[in-house]
């Protein structure tokens, strides 16, 4: 058993992720956004010109580094395994709505922890919503929910997204072809190489430990396994310590950086993320790591995140520090309805309607 699959390894890795995230803020990243999977895919979508929000455009080396770090680690550990075909288009759709939910809250589950670690109590409201979403997902899992099996794919298929990310990284480092914000969160960033190195290290740690924010809460409730959730808590502790040391800890609801105080929408935004992530089998960070492993379904989910982010900013779905607009409110409700429909169809309630139930029950 390697160090990273032990409880000590998980706690060490979580602490390191929390500490490095605050370090990136000190080096120039937006406040409480040292590492945020949703925000960074949104910035990547902006850098590619897929949305027109001028304040959130930057080719984030962290997110490219996380996927590539997981990719290299899985190759070295001989765990790289191209697989796919488990309800791929549904995963794309769930990826889109998970991004909608995250951008209504203004952060993925990882940023939720980092915001909590800086005293932002809006993130606590979101955590309750996230847990409610996961509990809803557990209800469906206990009733046989499955998106069906994945099957082996060609090696080339597994390399597609990692190589696209490598190309983006080289182009971002060597040319100025991508859009970059001159104001707002997109203009705030740590130096390129520091961001990249932290991303690679997070990718390595997340690959070795299987760190997953949604999985942590899910396993604690579902099978009384507290392994993953210890990583969650360690990130929180690492972030709190760093924020206290550097005077960045401020307890309260109001005037928190890149956050709003609409409790209902913070709750429901991460409710969507919790439920969607439970259906996907992992949070946005875990999907990124799995795509690095060669999982083609996770790669498609990431394309869903990027498309979701582009739509969210083109049509006013994403929240701003002022709050959540009408479009965002409509979309969150529609997303919940959509996830419930997927949940019903893919569990025993809709067994007659889908093939994944039959497929999953095939033995041998």
């Amino acid at each position, binding site marked *: 058993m390697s160090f990273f*699959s032990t409880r000590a390894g998980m706690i060490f890795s979580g602490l390191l992720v929390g500490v490095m995230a605050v370090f990136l803020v000190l080096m120039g990243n937006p406040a409480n956004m040292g590492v945020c999977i949703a925000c960074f895919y949104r910035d990547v979508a902006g850098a590619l010109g897929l949305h027109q929000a001028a304040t959130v455009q930057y080719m984030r080396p962290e997110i490219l580094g996380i996927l590539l770090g997981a990719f290299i680690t899985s190759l070295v*550990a001989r*765990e790289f*395994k191209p*697989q796919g*075909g*488990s309800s791929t288009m549904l995963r794309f759709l769930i990826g889109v709505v998970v991004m909608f939910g995250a951008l209504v809250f203004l952060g993925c589950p990882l940023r939720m922890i980092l915001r909590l670690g800086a005293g932002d109590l809006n993130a606590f409201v979101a955590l309750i919503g996230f847990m409610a979403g996961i509990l809803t997902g557990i209800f469906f*899992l206990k009733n046989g929910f*499955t*998106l069906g*099996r*994945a*099957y082996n794919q060609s090696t080339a298929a597994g390399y597609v997204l990692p190589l696209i990310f490598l190309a983006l990284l080289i182009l971002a480092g060597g040319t100025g072809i991508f859009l970059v914000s001159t104001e707002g969160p997109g203009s705030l960033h740590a130096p390129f190489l520091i961001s990249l190195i932290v991303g690679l290290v997070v990718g390595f740690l997340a690959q070795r430990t*299987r760190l*997953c924010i949604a*999985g942590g809460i*899910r*396993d604690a409730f*579902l*099978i*009384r*396994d507290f*392994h993953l959730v210890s990583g969650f808590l360690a990130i929180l502790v690492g972030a709190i310590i760093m924020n206290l040391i550097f005077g960045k800890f401020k307890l309260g609801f109001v005037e928190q950086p890149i956050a709003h105080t609409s409790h209902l929408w913070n709750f429901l935004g991460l409710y969507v993320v919790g439920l969607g992530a439970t259906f*996907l*089998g*992992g949070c946005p960070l875990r999907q990124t790591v799995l795509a690095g492993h060669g999982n083609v*379904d996770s790669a498609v989910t990431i394309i869903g995140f990027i498309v979701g982010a582009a739509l969210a900013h083109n049509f006013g779905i994403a929240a701003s520090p002022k709050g959540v607009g009408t479009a965002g409110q409509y979309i969150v409700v529609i997303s919940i309805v959509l996830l419930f429909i997927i949940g019903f169809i893919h569990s025993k309630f809709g067994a007659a309607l889908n093939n994944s139930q039959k497929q*999953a029950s*095939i*033995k*041998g």
Partner: protein
Amino acid sequence: MKEINLYGMSCPEPVLRTQNELKGMKPGEKLMVLVDSETAKENITRLVLSRKHKINVKKESEGFALEIEV
């Protein structure tokens, strides 16, 4: 010995299905679980050891064969 094939299933299905099988088993009974990812192997191993059962992990060409004794 009963055998369940959990190849290609995403988290937490392998560990959940294993748990469901274990619930109906009596002491001394054995279960063979086939998985094709390191993560599923680790999760199931943690589950089985936390329930004080025995597990024997064998590497196979496409994954792992986990022999569990309740």
